[in-house]
């Protein structure tokens, strides 16, 4: 059933016979698919590029009848960084550099073990740079927004969720009944409910459970909930990796005289993590897509910024442009990540199907 591979000697015609017109059904499919494809691609191209308007201050500037990208270009700053003060945009850039450093240990796989600490350090540094941390002028989280916020929430959620997920994965495999029960209970409850209900919790219920007068920032509450949410999925990703580490590794390490903690920390865990990196990346892709939900609790990530633009008189009625743009942004990010994760799978020879995503 797999695709026929053209032998080196096949001509274009032979290839076409085999791949396009193998049978009558195939020929019909080919023609239908070709027509559909051409129609769709041409219309999309015509609307999005040929007849599009790119610049202007209101929708009145869009006269060509195609897409009105002026809404995006006029508000590019909000799309990228929300309402972050203009004079401080360099801090957004710096924060992005910190986040890039945070993901280094995942991307460059030949780094020493201590490099894993770069991940939380990078995230904390980026939040500190954005927020000010009593050194820089403080910029409250209401001003944060745009694509920057999607990246920040996605990465923070994933990076802090990973250690919790590892603990939960070990807990689930543990022989200790209470710890095992707690881990299973936590994982299954969190995976059993939709993220949107947890976000509602963070926005309306969580403040009730904090001491009177203590006021955790809204974004921080959402971050905490997103972290806990993704930790359950991370736990399942890591569990798959743990199961894939051969038993002999553990026995060999024991026979070398290593204790339980050393065996786990130095032998089992590094291998398990390496195996589960594609699964972890896939969990992250799902989480990144889910950050578009933050708008329902009035956190202004890129979808929220676009929906706000749509409630400005200047851009009323440009839903198509707005949503196509947001979809495109996410598509570029998620598609490239999924390709990368697929290449990792091929390198390691282990296939971890990208089917389990947070929902």
């Amino acid at each position: 059933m797999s695709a026929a591979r053209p032998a080196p000697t096949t001509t274009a015609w032979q290839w076409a016979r085999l791949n396009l017109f193998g049978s009558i059904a195939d020929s019909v499919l080919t023609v239908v698919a070709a027509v559909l494809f051409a129609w769709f691609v041409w219309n999309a191209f015509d609307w999005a590029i040929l007849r599009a308007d790119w610049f202007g201050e209101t929708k009145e500037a869009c006269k060509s009848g195609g897409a009105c990208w002026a809404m995006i270009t006029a508000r590019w700053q909000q799309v990228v960084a929300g309402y972050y003060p203009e004079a401080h945009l360099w801090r957004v850039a710096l924060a992005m550099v910190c986040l890039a450093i945070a993901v280094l240990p995942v991307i460059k796989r030949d780094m020493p073990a201590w490099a894993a600490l770069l991940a939380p350090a990078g995230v904390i540094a980026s939040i500190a740079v954005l927020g000010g941390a009593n050194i820089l002028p403080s910029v409250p989280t209401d001003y944060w927004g745009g694509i920057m916020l999607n990246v920040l929430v996605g990465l923070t959620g994933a990076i802090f969720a990973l250690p919790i997920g590892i603990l939960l994965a070990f807990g689930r495999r543990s022989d200790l009944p209470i710890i095992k029960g707690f881990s299973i209970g936590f994982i299954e409850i969190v995976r059993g409910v939709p993220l949107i209900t947890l976000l509602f919790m963070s926005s309306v219920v969580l403040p009730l459970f904090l001491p009177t007068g203590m006021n955790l920032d809204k974004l921080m509450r959402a971050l905490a909930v997103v972290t806990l949410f993704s930790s359950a999925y991370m736990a399942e990703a890591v569990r798959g990796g743990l199961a894939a580490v051969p038993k002999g590794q553990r026995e060999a390490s024991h026979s070398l005289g290593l204790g339980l903690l050393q065996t786990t920390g130095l032998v089992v865990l590094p291998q398990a993590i390496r195996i589960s990196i594609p699964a972890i990346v896939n969990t992250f892709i799902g989480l990144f897509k889910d950050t578009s939900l933050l708008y329902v609790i009035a956190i202004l990530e890129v979808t929220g910024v676009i929906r706000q633009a749509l409630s400005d008189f200047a851009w009323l009625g440009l839903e198509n442009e707005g949503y196509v743009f947001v979809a495109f942004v996410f598509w570029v990010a998620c598609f490239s990540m999924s390709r990368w994760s697929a290449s990792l799978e091929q390198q390691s020879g282990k296939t971890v199907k990208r089917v389990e995503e947070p929902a």
Partner: protein
Amino acid sequence: MARGGFMQRMGGVRGLAAQGALVLGLVLLAVWLNHNAGTNIAARGIATGYDFMGREAGFNIDQHLVDYEPTDTYTRVFLVGALNTILVAVMGIVTSTIIGLTAGVMRVSKNYLGRLLATTYVEIARNTPLPVQILVWYNLALLAPPPRTAWGADGLFFLTNRGVYLPQFNLNGLADFAIWGGIAAIVAGLFLSSHFRKQRTEHGTGASPNWGWAFAIGGFVLAYLLTGNPTGIDVPHKSGFGFTGGFTMSPALMALWAALSFYTGSFIAEIVRGGLQAVAKGQGEAARAVGLNDAQALRLVILPQAMRVIVPPLASQYLNLTKNSSLAVIIGYPDLVAVFAGTSLNQTGQAIETLALVMLFYLACSLSVSAFMNWYNARSAVWAVSR
């Protein structure tokens, strides 16, 4: 049981200490949270408890599978919302499976353009956020013509931006007999079909499994006729503000249905592709060598083997789809989250109770699917061994 046994189960002194610390920590956390919540709720004058469930809701829900009036209680609201969630989930599960199966098979087909089309669809659908897809579908649903220029035929169906109007079966007193008779015929037909198939595989001879299907359809028609044609058909007609009669599917339902189907379908396509590729290549070649054509090879040899790989992740996709249907709130489809964690929460102000009930519902769904999957896996493992 001896004390030593208990200690051993608890992992010795260290294990006991660790677990004791966990329990203590959880209890302290619970006490602290409870104390805070108690103080805050008292200070803010928020009502507590589930008394509100018996109170009149006062708002309208347009799509209700059971009778509902604004004078009904919040308990009824919960039921209506839950049924709407289940409705869109079931619809989505059926279509996403069809879409996923088609796209999955196309992704490994010999036809280059078919592969390209399927790949394009999968890569677009699974790499863009579902909320955005829902909004896009909703805007598409509204592009349909307004009622004045509706597409369709009077007395058959109408497609408008207010929804799709379809004929509806009216049930009379004998309808139950027809329905149950028909269901019985279908079940019997399925058993017959699988029995014939088994005979064929084991003995090489026997009736075609299609006879089982024929029995199912024939039985259904017979049940329908024998009970004296109990069902009338209510058809949509153009009138007044729009249409009367028939069954209406709102644009929100259509958009949500389409978005969930295409989104989940892309994941199912990948599962199906993985399953098909997991079947040894020789199987397909052998099937063709014994004279089966491509379609037969797929249906009779490859898919049955691939199913064992496909079904477990499929179940978690169905669960995801059900959870994702909570995004209905974005376009105002009255699912459980929209009517209960939305309108009801806003009206009563009892966030803790309403959200807890909603989460409990999803948890119950997820646990029952997990239970089913455990049962299925155990069964298919036995089946795999016994073969």
